[in-house]
């Protein structure tokens, strides 16, 4: 596993009295959040496109020019909290529900997109009892 990923959570899991979280790690999660917002917004837009929504209609609804809407929907780096709010209102009349989950102690996901992967079953103990985890054989 790459060094950065191995050490990614070191300072984060140190608790409230831990050292400063390095800038690069904060930047990593900033970028990640941006990408997740963008994925969510574009997903909403594509869903509503099947109901007749276009970028022109959306621009008119939220009082922006089509160029601006086009830019917002083109790349994660163009989004701001305000633009996200505008887009969600215009696209699907929604607002975000706040929530979060810890980045610590997550189990690696079992899912792998290639269906014919051989699976190796191992038993592991967790706090909530025992269950079967199927790690990907190529995982480091």
């Amino acid at each position, binding site marked *: 596993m*790459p060094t*950065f990923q191995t050490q990614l959570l070191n300072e984060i899991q140190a608790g409230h009295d831990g050292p400063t979280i*390095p800038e690069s790690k904060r*930047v*990593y999660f900033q970028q990640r959040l941006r990408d*997740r917002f963008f994925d969510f917004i574009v997903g909403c837009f594509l869903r509503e496109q099947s109901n007749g929504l276009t970028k022109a209609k959306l621009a008119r609804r939220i009082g922006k020019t089509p160029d601006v809407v086009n830019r917002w929907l083109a790349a994660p780096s*163009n989004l701001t909290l305000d633009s996200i709010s505008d887009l969600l209102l215009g696209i699907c009349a929604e607002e975000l529900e706040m929530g979060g989950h810890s980045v610590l102690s997550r*189990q690696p996901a079992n899912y792998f997109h290639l269906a014919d992967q051989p699976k190796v079953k191992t038993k592991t103990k967790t706090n909530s009892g025992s269950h079967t985890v199927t790690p990907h054989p190529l995982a480091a």
Partner: protein
Amino acid sequence: MRQGPSARAPWSLLPPRVHNSPCRCRARVARAIPRAKLAPNALIFRYFPGTVGSAPGASTSKRIRLWRCVADLPQVEDESKCRAFVVARNGSLTYMSIRNEWQTLVAQGDHLFRLKPLDGDRAERTVLLSKEMNDLIEGPWEEGAEGNRLARLLATLHNVVAGRRLVVCLTPYKARKANIGRLDPTTDSIWDIRCQDKPALRVFCAFVEKDVLFAVTCRPRSARVHWLGWFPLGDRSSKEWKRGITATKREWAKFFPTYEPVKGENLDAYLSNATPE
């Protein structure tokens, strides 16, 4: 592993054309051996990365599978150069699929690496990394501009692995905000992952199969960065673009000498959850 009952050297079983040049090309082997002549003895060929060309149709037949076996083969060339063997058996030539090929290379863990998603993320796509890319991402990074930029690059690659929506531009020179763009000439099917935060970077890659990218090299787009040992790519006619594409093709040939990258105009053949720009 011994194939078939014959104790004779496998080469002696081959038709003369193949016998004289046992390692030239899969396609040639396939042409040279009519199915009827193959049964019941297994005929074993070895091929070498430097001597094989592309094998059109290799991935089209389910009967085609490539066996890895080392026994009963005459010492015709340096064994270490031999990447794999083609085994023709029971009237059909079989090849190993490219999926088996890259999975074997990843499992060996020396030269080809698979980017692991952050714990908790689903692996909806696969990003394979060359040694150069793996070293770049593995770090350690200097805190500051380098660390920040590489952290964004890693987040971008994790975004690809997690299967989030990608904006794709199939037409060279037309990409504006796409995440991934196809490079000129399109016949090579070399792509770049566009990391547009400053300083902008481009990761040259090719599609091994649907949702499996092979990221080869990372180059600065416009401004020179001291932690990347490459000149900026510059404008579209610059030699640096050609060098990047050539490096990608060279690396591809090293790992997948008998396969071609995914090609075509159908976006669905390359990526799921992607929209054209």
